């Protein structure tokens, strides 16, 4: 095996602030995005049920 690039320094591995108002870390951004997706699915399921 050659070098091991999975050892990303903290400064490069998401330590950089997202710079999005209301979010201090990337984890928060990811959680928000996945939360929106869950909301999409819930609304689509309700939509399917409503018009069935």
């Amino acid at each position, binding site marked *: 095996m*050659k070098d091991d690039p999975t050892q990303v320094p903290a400064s490069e591995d*998401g330590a950089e602030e*997202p710079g999005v108002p209301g979010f201090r870390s990337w984890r928060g951004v990811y959680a928000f995005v996945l939360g929106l997706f869950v909301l999409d699915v819930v609304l689509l399921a309700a939509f*399917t049920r409503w018009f069935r």
Partner: protein
Amino acid sequence: MNALDWLVLLGTMLGIAAYGTWRTRHTDNLNTYLKGSRTTKWGTIGLSVMATQASTITYLSLPGQAYESGIAFIQNYFGLPLALVIVCAVFLPIYRRLGVYTAYEYLGRRFDTKTRLLGAFLFLLQRGLQSGITIYAPSIILSTVLGWRLDLTILFTGLLVIVYTVTGGSAAVNLTQKWQMAVIFGGMVTAFVVLIMRLPADAAPIAGAMGKLEAVDFTPDLERRYTFWSGMLGGLFLSLSYFGTDQTQVQRYLGGASVREGRLGLMFNAVFKVPMQLFIVLLGAGLFVFYQFQPDTPVFFNQTEWQRHAAGPHAERFRAIEAEHAVRHAEQLARIRAWVAARDSGDAQLEAQARAEMRTAQAAVNAVRAEARAALKDADPRAKLKDSDYVFITFILGQLPHGVIGLLIAVMFASALSSKAGELNALGTASTIDIWRHFRPLAAHDEARNVRNAKWFTALWGLFAIGFALLVSFAENLIEFLNIIASIFYPALLGVFVVAFFLKKVGGSAVFWAAVAAQTVVIGIYFYGKANPAHEIGYLWLNPIGVGACVLFSLVLQALIGARGRRATA
């Protein structure tokens, strides 16, 4: 199309291409040429990622698919948001830290040369084959309905994209894709608004009652092509492969000003991709309702193909089918109106009975449409039987005002150019960095020569795509076949990347042979399913199976290699 339509079409297409060429004409730095300007912000990256993924087929065929089968296709995108989060958290920081041009360059650093070449080869193979289709698929539809010459349509599209992609590389691709997406959004929203204004008040309940609004299906059935589960799991792996390991996408987000810009560009897609696709399939469901209320709805939407055979020796059969369709269609409309009245009456029993009668009438119309396809096939075994691709374009040409028609045709060309540009840019880059520089290592430091070669490779792939589209007469099932080819080759490639990122003890030889074995397994499952349709699984499931096989085989092979090494040492 009249003069106004032509003005809008040519003005937008040539204007954007000329602007992109002129703004990036002095691109002679390798980094800028292959990765784009390092000042690229997240908005441009986000639109570029979206434009590369969505080809003309997305805007032309998806509404037709929803017309035919409802909006369940939306589930195909359910794995995408999670996949993009994983790409942002794992793939992107590593690519950026290493400063690679291609995803396969990373495989060379993590494993060895043969694994890098395997990755690049798999990418060039599938993208090279698909590059012809990206031009051919929209050209055949537009030339059929507009009466243009197919060869000239292919040449115009292909040469236009070659000019600005070769001139400005990634910088030109990013710049033009932004404007092309503006044209696409503007055109699609306009078409949607016009459609909504022409729909009856009960359009949504009608579409729902006729089975077109079933967006989510939680049935755990492996044989159903689109369910929540296949979309989440299969879609996750498919999206991970596409966004994490396919150079057409990797190149788009590597060019950002920083990791942050790349991540935000991808998050933009994670948030808006599902709603955007929903908008497109809802357009199709709306078209379905619209055409139920049109007395002259054709039995077969590809009227050019239909009329070509209707005038032949089987004319009598074709006329009989048209007459039968007119009767069934009118009957269906009467049943729809009866159902709306029953629903408004509030009588549940009456509503259920009217709904059943409406569905029976719908089945009768579908049976006539199936008979129409059978008649076409009998008249000409090579006839194009899939008419759903022609539903939206029929609406555009028949129902939209002049000027807007030109805008919508511009949407189709803009989407073809934007996805084609992303493809050519990536094919040229992988050919230069992973193949040419491998065999000419001493030339790696000659920047001007690298840029020159990248331009040549981009142009050659463009000419290959044009030649492929011109010379090969694609059958409809060949287009589907090549799409499935991509689904067959992605899993092993993603498996290699998963091993690279998460299994630090596995080396190059183990992962290389594991990928070859996993590829064999996936191909075996696919052909077994084709030979035994009762056991065929939806193609999305090949993705988790292939990735799982590659990871498992890597671990086993690495254990065997390690044990052999220890015995040799002892």
